[in-house]
């Protein structure tokens, strides 16, 4: 489904070069839920952003359903429509109602009719538990509700894979649960997911695999049991001690 092959992303700035992602290779199968964890600045977000082309990587290849993102001939907009992304800061469109947030890209990118898009949007809002907010503007919603709308917005494109970049980090603690519940349900339904998170409970419960990154490299990979009970690498042990 997704295959990353020795992906390198170098940011060069005045203060020098940062190898944000440094030779990451991994494969994600259809229906698999992969949780990426690691300390701040370890390149988790950057790697995720490379997968849907928000960041162009310096070296390596990323294949999505066999299509190479590094290939100049690849239509990046087509790939993005298949790869849903949920951001830490929700990034809802503030000038559009919740319903319009969900229908805009359906109409523009998937070329669906208004009616079909509306039906799809209503169904998804029901699924994430806020069907009554369709006509509201995002600023009237709580953080948890906004993030659920953002998930619904990504799902409206019928993506093959969903990427989550710390979807609960900007939320008040009491709202974390409602968002995680939606994500757990998605996982149960067989959605392919790559989730960057600090929610270790979530990782334990739904992850098929945990990837631990540090300084742009994959340091350790394993099942949640293996990773949380018997990590091999020193850095992973240290990190777990800090977060658990």
């Amino acid at each position: 489904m997704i295959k990353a092959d020795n992906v390198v992303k170098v940011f060069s700035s005045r203060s020098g070069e940062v190898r944000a992602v440094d030779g990451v290779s991994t494969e994600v199968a259809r229906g698999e839920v992969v949780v990426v964890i690691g300390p701040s600045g370890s390149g988790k977000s950057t790697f995720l952003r490379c997968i849907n082309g928000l960041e162009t990587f310096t070296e390596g290849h990323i294949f999505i359903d066999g299509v190479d993102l590094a290939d100049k001939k690849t239509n990046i907009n087509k790939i993005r429509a298949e790869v849903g992304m949920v951001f830490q800061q929700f990034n809802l469109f503030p000038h559009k109602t919740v319903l319009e947030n969900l229908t805009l890209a359906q109409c523009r990118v998937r070329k669906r009719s208004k009616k079909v898009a509306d039906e799809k949007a209503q169904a998804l809002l029901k699924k994430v538990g806020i069907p009554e907010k369709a006509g509201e503007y995002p600023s009237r919603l709580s953080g948890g509700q906004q993030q659920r709308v953002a998930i619904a917005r990504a799902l409206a494109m019928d993506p093959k894979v969903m990427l989550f970049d710390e979807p609960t980090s900007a939320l008040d603690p009491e709202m974390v649960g409602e968002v995680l519940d939606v994500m757990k349900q998605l996982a149960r339904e067989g959605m392919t997911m790559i989730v960057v998170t600090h929610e270790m409970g979530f990782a334990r419960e739904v992850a098929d695999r945990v990837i631990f990154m540090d300084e742009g490299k994959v340091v350790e990979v394993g099942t949640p049991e293996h990773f949380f009970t018997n990590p091999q690498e020193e850095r992973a042990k240290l990190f777990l001690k800090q977060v658990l």
Partner: protein
Amino acid sequence: MKAREKTWPWRLLLVVILLGIAAGTWGAVSKIDYKWRWYRVPQYFMYLAEDAQKIPFDGKVTAVVKGNKNTKVTVVSESAETKTIQVTSDTLKVSEGEDLFAGDTVGFTKTWRLGPLMLGLWTTLWLSAISSVFALILGLLTGIARVSKNITLRGLAMVYVECIRGTPLLVQIFIAYFFLGTVFNLSRNVCGVGALALFAGAYVAEIVRAGVQSIPKGQMEASRSLGMTAFQTMKDIILPQAFKKILPPLSGQFISLIKDSSLVSVIAITDLTKSGREIITSTFATFEVWIVVAAMYLLVTSVLSQLVFYMERRLAVSD
């Protein structure tokens, strides 16, 4: 809790100061020997024009039918041609049975016409309106080019903006008229509109650029992550949000444009300012005319401000 501060003493003070300024001006003016002739001004807004009605042939007046306001005069020529001419009753110059020659005046018709002030205002309005439309299009494109990834586009936009903002509008108008106008054989109106549009466009571009850059990066990323193209993202996500933010500075720019349009009078476009100058040469009512001209500009710009205020309130629904 603090009691609400009284505002009326300050309002009173404001009125007193304004009255003081008015009185001071009045006093200063009355010291110099200036004869106010306000009565001369209204005719330059509207006036009753008298057009002479003449007969095209030699002939005889056969009938004069007097109405309340208008009188119908029927003239028959030697070759039995008849012609009926209508004139305003109190200007009738002929009577029944009179012999007339070709070109003789039968009387006058009176009609209300717009005076030079109104015609000048009209010129100023359409000149500003057309320039605004072009400035908006130009500014939008340039503003977006300024934030584009393409170095060529960015460079072109920057050169344009810097050149325009670094030179005086008056000089630009002269260049547009005497240089470009001559080389490309353009009419003065085209030169005037062109210079104003180019000038305002550069400022609009900067406003648009600032507006686009004020939209958080996450909006662009969210939209692109859904598969929307750069163009769709600009049109559906970035510009609508930016527009709301830039409406106040943008309207300020267009109000400036109306005022700046007075400079095109230097290339002999008869706008409001030029009309004012022309009226002064025939009336010598210098003070009155300039005050009236200023009041007319003020009226137009205030109406525009109110319109923008109303639009801002309408756009604020999603906040």
